């Protein structure tokens, strides 16, 4: 149990720091490029162009990636917990973890369908 807690604590710490770093870089690039953070319009999230936009130092790309990492961090925590509980033979808790992941997958589908 303690090793599971330690592993998950590490995932959360690394994920949070990476997300905050990306958001900070994106924010600095944004104002350095002369764009107001209160601008009424912002470029939509386009996962396909994200790698190229990152290489081109586009501020929105860093901000979007930071937001994705932020949201993915607790989800990754559930994945790691589920895997750890499954390996430890705690099938009921592993099944609950799978149920949480299914709900999150449904959220993506529902968001895409409604959007």
């Amino acid at each position, binding site marked *: *149990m303690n090793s*599971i*807690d*330690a592993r*998950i*604590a590490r995932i*959360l*710490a690394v*994920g*949070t720091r990476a*997300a*905050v770093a990306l*958001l*900070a870089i*994106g*924010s600095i690039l*944004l*104002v350095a490029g*002369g*764009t*107001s*953070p*209160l*601008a009424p319009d*912002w470029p*939509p*999230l386009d996962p396909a162009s994200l790698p190229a936009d990152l290489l081109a130092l586009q501020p*929105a790309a860093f*901000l*979007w990636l*930071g*937001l*994705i990492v*932020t*949201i*993915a*961090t*607790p*989800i990754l*925590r*559930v994945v790691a*917990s589920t895997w750890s*509980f499954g390996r430890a033979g*705690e099938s*009921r*808790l592993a099944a*609950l*973890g799978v*149920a*949480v992941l299914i*709900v*999150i997958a*449904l*959220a*993506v589908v*529902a*968001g*895409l369908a*409604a*959007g």
Partner: protein
Amino acid sequence: MIVGQLLLLAAGGFGAGAFGSLLGLGGGILIVPLLTVGFGVPFREAVGISLVCVIVTSSAAAGVYLQRHTANLRLGMVLEVFTATGALLGGLVAFALPERVLAGLFAVLLAWTAFSMLRRGRVEAAPPSAADPVEEPGAASAPWGDPGPASQSLADEIAGPGYRPRRLGAGAGGSLGAGMLSALLGVGGGIVKVPLMHLVMGVPLMVATATSNLMIGVTAAASAVVYLVRGGIDPYIAGPTAVGVFAGALVGSRLASRIDVRILRLLFVGVLALTAAQMALRALG
């Protein structure tokens, strides 16, 4: 001017993160009013940004709670099924409700939070009268299903040192409601989850607080996914605000032991009451 706007957003986030950390609240209760009243951001966009900030503070704090073995990961996993389901439903409903209704709901939440903080202050000022409820193993009231004498019940599986969560059905129902609240209003929902786990399920207060914090990230992620996919999160505002919240929460957690939180709490109750009035006016048009 542009740099000033960035710094103002980051400073606002810093204040929300620091106050939230000092007073044991998520930043969400402050970020939505900050963005809507302070920066004129539409309510639904403010909720999307607040969810991101709530995930940042939850992930940062939950890691520490797990390292200290304060959070009950197993209990969190059980209740997360319901908070995440509630968050999914709330995330979908939020886009169907008029913003004035959401503002009205938020005003009620602010007023309730102010009332709870005043009451908590009075409880803390009074001498301790009762210990945390602890249930003897095997005496839990009706956990889901009874797998039989050969296998552990779910309540046994999620028990911690000195306590065994009870009334799992009520915990599940309350968690569903907390998830909806989180998605609709961009808050962590700890104001529901902590009393639910502590008073209804018999979990010690410190464990309930830490476990609630752990659950907030997943709960907010389930609804933030809906907001993200539907274009409901403004990355330009979310970036500096989330960075500010993160820094503020770090500083707040270090100052917590050096500041007289009672005075801070009274000040905060006043701010909450004023903000509730502004939100109510917004709801009334």
